[in-house]
């Protein structure tokens, strides 16, 4: 597992956190997308607010849809966002 990972935010999450992306150092106990989420939401009140409505959080690992229980493995990029509204 790499020591750091690039985390991207979109839509409401980007607005609340005020960042498009940030680099996050991964402690050893972070294995899944859900672990990463619980790590990130403690970074600031804004982060906490952004992730407070768990039901509306979706994620992708290396640009593929992923559930919160998905293993990060050797992922280089994880994105968090609300449900998509394309089309």
């Amino acid at each position: 597992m790499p020591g750091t990972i690039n985390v991207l935010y979109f839509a409401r999450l980007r607005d609340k956190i005020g960042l498009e992306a940030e680099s996050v150092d991964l402690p050893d106990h972070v294995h899944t997308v859900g672990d990463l989420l619980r790590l990130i939401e403690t970074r600031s009140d804004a982060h906490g607010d952004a992730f407070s409505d768990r039901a509306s959080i979706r994620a992708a690992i290396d640009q593929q849809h992923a559930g919160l229980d998905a293993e990060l493995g050797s992922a280089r990029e994880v994105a968090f966002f609300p449900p998509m509204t394309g089309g």
Partner: protein
Amino acid sequence: MNEIIVQVDEMAPDGAALTARLTDAPDTEAGTNMGTGAVATFLGICRGEGGKLEALELQHYPGMAEAQLERIARQTLSSTGATAIAIHHRHGRVLPGEPIVAVVATSPHRKAAIEAVDTVMDYLKTDAPFWKRERWANGETSWVDAKPSDDAARAARADKH
């Protein structure tokens, strides 16, 4: 050979231009064996909401957007029997009356082409990493919420195929 074209940029999707790219390609089955009997096109347009909407602003996930459109097109080719699919999805600022997305599908017979366009649109709603924000004439903005009915349509596709 099946043919897939995906395009993601700030340009207005143009159904006719996409159709030409799908059907004029000199080395695709759709173009040269003259087996195409049906071309279905769908254009999604930004509604003006009775003059209250100033613009839609579409945020997207670069890289993943293109990959997802390609995946959706490939999946739909195999589930519907369409012979070629093109998807052009816009991001950035879109004014009322302007197109947001164009989908074109070809097939030997009508039903597969129409079904393919409809299927792609169902998947785009839930699987394509675009987020719409409404900018209202009164200065307010609001993110568009995903519709439960979109998830239901998406799930129905997944069950069927």
